[in-house]
C-alpha cells in the first residue's frame, strides 16, 4: 500500500470519532452490508463520516490491508477497527455497541 493512502486512512480515522468505509454513500448505499451498518448507526443517532470506497480504488484496497480484513464495510470508532457488518449487527443486538459508543463519549440518541 502506498504510504499516502495509509496516511489518509490514519488521518480520517483519528480526526473523526466514527468512520464507516462503505460502498456508496450514507444516503445511497450500494451494497446491502454497507446499508445495514448505516441503518444501525442512523437508528442510534450516531454522527459518522462515510467514506465511499467505490469512488477511490486505492482506498478500497488500502483499507483492507490497513485492517487486515477482507471485506467492506468497516467501522472505526476512535481510530480502532470495530468490525464489519456481522459484528456491528451482533453488537447492536446485544447492546454492546451502544455501550462501547457511550464509553467512548459518543452521543447515542436512539430514534423511535
Amino acid at each position, binding site marked *: 500500500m502506498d504510504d499516502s493512502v495509509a496516511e489518509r486512512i490514519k488521518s480520517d480515522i483519528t480526526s473523526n470519532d466514527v468512520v464507516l468505509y462503505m460502498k456508496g454513500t450514507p444516503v445511497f448505499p450500494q451494497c446491502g452490508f454497507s446499508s445495514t451498518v448505516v441503518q444501525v448507526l442512523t437508528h442510534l443517532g450516531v454522527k459518522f463520516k462515510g467514506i465511499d470506497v467505490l469512488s477511490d480504488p486505492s482506498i478500497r484496497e488500502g483499507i483492507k490491508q490497513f485492517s487486515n480484513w477482507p471485506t467492506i464495510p468497516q467501522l472505526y470508532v476512535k481510530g480502532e477497527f470495530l468490525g*464489519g457488518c456481522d*459484528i456491528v449487527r451482533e453488537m447492536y443486538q446485544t447492546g454492546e455497541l451502544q455501550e462501547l459508543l457511550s464509553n467512548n463519549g459518543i452521543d447515542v440518541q436512539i430514534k423511535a
Partner: protein
Amino acid sequence: MAMDAALIESLIKESIPDADVRIEDLRGDGDHYAAYVESATFKGKTRVQQHKMVYDALQGRMGGELHALALQTSVPKDA
C-alpha cells in the same frame, strides 16, 4: 461466482479442527451463505480476532469468489 457449501465447511474444519460448523445457503444460489462457527479456540478472543480466524481458514476467498458470508462465531458453553 459461486462456492460450494461443503468446501467452505471443510476449509474451516481443516484450519479449526474442533469447530462445529453450520452453513446455510441463504438464497439457494450458492453465493450467499451464513456460517455459524463454534470453537473452544475462540475463547478469550475478540469478535474481530474470531472472524479473522475464519477468514484465514478460507484462504483469501472471502471478499473474492465468496461475496456474501454472514458470519457468527461463538465459544462452546463448557469451554
